[in-house]
């Protein structure tokens, strides 16, 4: 069977077609052009016409270039030797270390049997009240930070990663600014965490298609380590760049777009990556923290919108703070029942009051007279923003809960809070003092 072809039939964007026989859907090929050698994979077969997406992009490819079919799908080396190493989106070293080719594993492998999943139960403590109290992060959760560009999302990502007690951190960078790449590297090096980290980084200046491989490679490696018993935290930043690469390929392939140019299978493509987050019974776990930048600060944009439907909540970062509205941890109820008995009620109660505060604020901005009640809410809202929401606050959950009661008692009478009487009796600071 012929494996090498020297006639490329069409070149469109990053997709080329070759007339070939005996090749398999999904398999790899090597394309040699004057730009160098690049991998490509088969994305469509139609009779003899084979469509391939070229990882290094279509630029500079000529119709007479050589395409060599490799007869195998994309794989990545997996071993302890990955630790501390930095690779690009195709798995080639970006540092000075050696190329790794032992123990190749499949990427984009099958999904976990839902019957083998277990209910997540371990809280990941971050010291950030907006997370620990209101949107608790849980081991094996998949959760993105929704953010407009310019917000310190990578800093937040790095901070959570450093504070979280995990065995391994895998950074998957997609369209990462070079400075941000260096930032992550320095943060991990300076804290001594680099030797338990692995980077797969596609930077903004690398070919688009390579960006598509980053989540699959990162998650395949994470999954293997998790099967070996490691608690792995995968950071994926920025998934909007990943989605944009999907869009680019879809348009090149003449697919009918469903929404603002994105392909109809955007949801499934994102889900198959995020669903790799898992807690293996009797082994380790994969937790995914991602970044999804929102073009034009619009949550209804297809990328954040589809992401929100897939992930187990999101942290909505705005003006340097995690917003109570829009932020959500869907797994919080798995863990907050066993933290402290006031956790759930306080969490909902404070947010309800914060919502009322926002209404009063609106009335005030329209120049209406403020009632006593409005004044109380305004007082509360300001305290809440300053003492709870600021990202600089770094206290353990229990302290944060106490602080919550403190703020409430400084602003309201107990029955104004809508909290159950038995909790008020137990935690309301003044009532407690009288007791003692």
């Amino acid at each position, binding site marked *: 069977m012929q494996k090498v072809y020297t006639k490329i039939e069409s070149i469109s964007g990053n997709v080329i077609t070759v007339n070939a026989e005996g090749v398999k859907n999904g398999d790899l090929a090597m394309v040699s052009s004057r730009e160098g050698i690049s991998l490509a994979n088969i994305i469509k077969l139609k009779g003899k016409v084979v469509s391939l997406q070229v990882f290094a992009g279509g630029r500079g490819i000529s119709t007479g270039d050589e395409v060599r079919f490799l007869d195998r799908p994309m794989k990545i080396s997996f071993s302890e030797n990955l630790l501390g190493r930095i690779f690009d989106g195709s798995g080639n070293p970006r540092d000075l270390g050696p190329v790794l080719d032992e123990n190749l594993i499949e990427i984009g492998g099958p999904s976990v049997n839902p019957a083998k999943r277990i209910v997540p139960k371990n809280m990941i403590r971050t010291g950030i009240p907006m997370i620990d109290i209101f949107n608790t992060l849980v081991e094996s959760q998949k959760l993105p930070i929704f953010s407009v560009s310019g917000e310190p999302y990578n800093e937040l990502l790095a901070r959570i990663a450093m504070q979280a007690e995990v065995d391994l951190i895998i950074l998957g960078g997609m369209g990462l600014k070079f400075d941000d790449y260096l930032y992550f590297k320095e943060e991990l090096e300076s804290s001594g965490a680099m030797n338990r980290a692995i980077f797969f980084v596609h930077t903004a200046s690398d070919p688009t298609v390579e960006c598509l491989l980053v989540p699959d490679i990162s998650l395949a490696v994470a999954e293997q380590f998790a099967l070996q018993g490691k608690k792995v935290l995968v950071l994926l930043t920025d998934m909007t760049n990943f989605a944009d690469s999907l869009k680019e390929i879809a348009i090149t392939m003449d697919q009918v777009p469903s929404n603002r140019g994105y392909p109809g299978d955007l949801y499934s493509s994102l889900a198959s990556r995020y669903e790799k987050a898992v807690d293996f019974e009797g082994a380790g776990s994969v937790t995914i923290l991602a970044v999804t930048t929102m073009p034009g600060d619009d949550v209804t944009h297809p990328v954040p919108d589809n992401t*929100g439907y897939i992930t187990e909540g999101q942290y909505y970062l705005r003006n340097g703070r995690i917003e109570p509205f829009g932020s959500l941890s869907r797994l919080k109820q798995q863990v907050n029942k066993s933290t402290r008995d006031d956790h759930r009620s306080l969490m909902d109660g404070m947010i309800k009051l914060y919502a009322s505060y926002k209404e009063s604020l609106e009335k005030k901005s329209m120049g209406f007279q403020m009632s006593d009640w409005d004044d109380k809410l305004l007082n509360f809202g300001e305290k809440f923003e300053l003492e709870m929401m600021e990202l600089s606050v770094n206290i353990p959950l229990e302290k944060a809960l106490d602080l919550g009661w403190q703020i409430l008692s400084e602003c309201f009478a107990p029955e104004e809070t809508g909290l159950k009487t038995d909790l008020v009796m137990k935690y309301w600071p003044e009532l407690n003092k009288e007791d003692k």
Partner: protein
Amino acid sequence: MNTGKIVGINGNMATVEFSGNISQNEVGYIVLDEKRLKAEVIRVTGNSAALQVFEMTNGIGVGDVVEFTGEQLSVDLGPGLLSQVYDGLQNPLADLAEKCGFFLQRGIYMNAIPDKKWEFTPKVKKGDIVQPAYTLGVVPEGIFQHRIMVPFGFAQEDFTVKMILPKGLYSAYDEIAVLTDPRGVDHSVTMIFTWPIKKPIRNYEERLKPVEPMTTKVRIVDTFLPVALGGTFCIPGPFGAGKTVLQQITSKNADVDIVIIAACGERAGEVVDTLIEFPELTDPRTGKSLMERTIIICNTSSMPVAAREASVYTAVTMAEYYRQMGLNVLLLADSTSRWAQAMREMSGRLEEIPGDEAFPAYLESTIASFYERAGLVRLYDGSTGSVTIGGTVSPAGGNFEEPVTQATLKVVGAFHGLSRERSDARKYPAINPLESWTKYKGIIEKGKTDLARHILFRGEEVNQMMKVVGEEGTSLDDYIIFQKSEFLDSVYLQQDSFDLIDGSVSIERQKYIFNVMYEILKAKFSLSTKQEARSFFNQLRQTFIDWNSFSWESDSFKQTEESLMNKVKAKLRIEK
């Protein structure tokens, strides 16, 4: 056997050239090394067919062989379906896990119905005349008498019972009867038969109008937005608004015989909640574990998309099957949008002319015919059974104007629309009480709920007004209406689903506390300032919330009620 050859692969669509006859929705297997990958014919043109492949298609090449089965995509029906967890094609996930470990492997298909022995009691005798769907005998499945019926696919004609086994213990796969058709041909019958999932089961006398409420123990639903047994409802809402939680509560509390959960293209983790929790929970109606009345069809978001499309049909076919036994079945599908998207993906690959947001032109009729499979029916033996269908909808951008929500709203009997504002403010369940509607009758006299709705409506009006003229520009009477509506909202419409007591409220209790609520809403209070009104309602709210948290008719419940009534009485204005 009819075979064909692969000539193209595009995502999960295979193009196949064949000779001979094949039919629409016929199952074919793509032969790949030692594996056989299941696929379904979805379009035939000339001697070329498009197949949707229920597995990942990597590794398939042009020239690979496809074996056609001559059979439509079907499920197995028989005793042993209850408490199982299946994928979209009815593979039992627990058995797959035992065989393959942590990960799903493609090309592995297993028997849906366990080879288990059942205590069979015949209901017919030799020489009796029967027709499709007539009961031949029964076996006890959990708390139900599972009817072993003449296969629904048999021709609609008289069969003579030639042989029927006596009472005894038999495997589901044993021959239990032989039936002779009018032409004298014998047909062997076991406890199991198959049925094509895309074809509704219609072996009943007539369809009836759904009237009896299907209660859920969720106050806002049972009192204000009820659903009837045999009816349909939908829950559209943006992500995070509480669709799944609402369905989970309903699957626990619904007053029906059997619940079928179709986890269609959403998170696997959410199914696990149910999987782990249900065996531990007891069904108050039966005292048995909830799992014994439940079937889960689980084709979550990272599982093959084509099987997701099939999964809702797999689920509804099983629902119809149990309806044939005179049972009330509830089917919950989360989310129907993922099913619609699966259709969209396939339609795109078939290069059909796209409609709105690239959904296919037949979206609306497909959604309508799916919900049409719900219904209350009178069976041949005079008993009734029902299938109630509730589907969540996940509209892009949370905008209800999109095609799937709109197509669904046209066909369902109740609309429980979730709102982002309410979920942001943690007002759960975040059903918007003003926008949502129902065509069914509930547990409380309509006149009374109408008054409550009116107050909600007026309260919202006043609230909007206040945003224009401020509190100072609002009359005291209006302000009191606003306070009443807020009160109704926070202690009655809102309900803490994770609270042991408040999470599920019996119908008896709902009627009782609604009457108290009704009296408060109707009452005229002597309150002289807005400040006084606000603090009065704050106190009522506090007491009512405490009241909600005590178990029904306990001492604390009674004490709190008294304290609530005293507070109310203290401010009641006595009309002269």
